């Protein structure tokens, strides 16, 4: 979402090309999330698990917190994995052009 070419390639301007509109999408998402969270006020769930005092699947805001924190940590952990796992694009090909053997 960092760069935007205001439709200069196609000639045609698209709604998403304007930077302000991308922000609008983000705020709309926040609004939708607030609504889904609010749903927990109106709908009482029955806890199936006793673990965590029944909060896990019956308590307020469990799924939103789990979804957000899970996805957030997933990305940050994966980012750190790059330090160990990432190689250049031709890593497996280089050998043939007079590398190790």
């Amino acid at each position, binding site marked *: 979402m960092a760069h935007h070419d205001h439709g200069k390639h196609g000639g045609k301007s698209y709604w998403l090309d304007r930077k302000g509109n991308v922000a609008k999408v983000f705020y709309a998402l926040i609004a939708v999330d607030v609504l889904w969270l609010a749903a927990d006020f109106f*709908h009482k*769930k029955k806890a199936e698990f006793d673990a965590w005092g029944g909060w896990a699947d019956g308590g307020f805001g469990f*799924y939103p917190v789990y979804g957000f924190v899970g*996805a957030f940590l997933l*990305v940050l952990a994966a980012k750190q994995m790059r330090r160990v796992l990432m190689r250049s694009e031709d890593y*497996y090909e280089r050998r043939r052009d007079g590398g190790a*053997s």
Partner: protein
Amino acid sequence: MAELLLSPPMLLMLGSVVLAAAPRNVLPRTVLRALLLALPVYSLWRFWGLDLGDYAQFELFGQTLTLVRIDPLSRIFVVIFHLAALIGSVYSFYVRDNFQPLVGVFYAGSALGVVLAGDLWTLFLFWEVAAVSSALLVWVRRSGRAAGAGLRYLGMQMVSGVLLLAGIVLLRHEVGAAPGWAEFRNLTGFLENGGLGFSNLAATLIFLAFGLKAAFPLLHSWLIDAYPESTPAGAVFLSAFTTKFAIYALARAFPGQSELIWIGALMTAFPIFFAVIENDLRRVLAYSMTNQLGFMVVGIGIGTELAINGAVAHAFADILFKGLLFMAMGAVLYRVGHVNGSDLGGLYKSMPITTGLCIVGAASISAFPLFSAFATKSLIMSAAVYKEYFWLWLVLLFASAGVFHHAGIKIPFFAFFHHDSGIRCKEAPRSMIVAMVLAAAASMAIGLFPLAEMWFGVANPFYALLPYPVDYDVYTTTHVITQSQLLFFSALAFATLMRTGLYPPELRSVNLDADWLYRRVGLRIWDGVATAFVALHRAGYATAGRLAATALETAQRHLGPQGFLGRSWLTASMALWVAVLLAAYLVVFYWRLG
């Protein structure tokens, strides 16, 4: 005989061979294509008319083999494999050459052979045919990378085949006849609860053979390695069959095997980390395939009727939505020439229809309400809840949020939105769009059927296909709310990471995976052994050479024209030396006598 030839596997395999062999002037391309599409349609129509039971039995080497055994578990796989063959063929008509759909339909036939096999010999036969014919679909890309990946792929498939063969031979030794599934269970001491203890070697070998094709952790890298190196159409065919008949085989032979629960849980969680940092978007899909297979493996491991239904239903849905996502990325590959997230973006302007259909696939795999995985994966999740597997349930929930993150958002976002890459291309060819529409419609139908049943009382034809009766409400208020919360807050995490710049950028790179063990470490060891051998050989050769040279030199010095022994001698001197010798002999003789 007709029953044998017109059985689904034979019809598709022989049909595609006959069409491939027909001369071009006899069979114009359009007629050939019409006939090719008619094959799966006719085969499915014929199959639909058959009742449950055994068909097409024949004698081979004194053993009775059963080519077709229809029961509720095989039936649903037969239906989806026909649909996949049809959709894949339509998709592949974007190239003039008919090689890919012909091989694809042949491969589909072998997959049908696996799921319909009534005994393990027949299963093994089709297991191997599928391995070879699918390798052709990797090689058809005709690139150096595809050649290598195809070879590694075939190697791993052969390992699975050898394990399976060894297991069957051991079983055969005990039964004395072609072992069927019933004998398999009896002999391996299969227990209804908890599965078998792996004390039986045959069962262990067969478990590993199935597990390799189902992409168990550390046995999975052939999938990640090879599928993304295929052509757009090749990857669509590949994504449908091999892994899914492995799931069928596991569900057939190892339902309720408790080890599968944790193997599956690992499969759901691990690949999503790799998917987040992978740049090749079709490789992201390959990782997400391992993740989805994990859900199915968990379902088989739990083993209740609900869980097995869930695993099988999810396999059915996965063929459609994963196929759809592979088709959308294949369309991008076809039009742009690559699917690197780092260099794409803004393609919704050029390919709006593909974008829309890709989003349907993304929503389906993410299990949004109204879409297919919501009506299939939920069965597995609920089965875990009913059996009170709390930690398993947490892992699966995390994996569900992760699926949405990498397959639901990352795929469409980096290909079609993100920043405008400036790439302007044509919309996908018509054949691709038709195939994607078919898969998208089927994915939505699976998601909508339960709703139609709830609101209008229309019987759910999809659930009716499942192996066990379904008594399960998908669209409960709690379920819709909790699933939406999970997904929308996962989306919020993505958006927050993007806006704060914390999200790792897409980079042109390769990430190491288990295949590193044989592509690098194994190769290094092999190199080391080979180098040592060559060095030893050279050293031995050099020493022998030096010795031979010295011997030759010495001989030459003494026997050569200038050598002491090689000179011309005077006859007189020779006579003198003979006289000296005789004299010496005489002296010795007398001295001995004295």
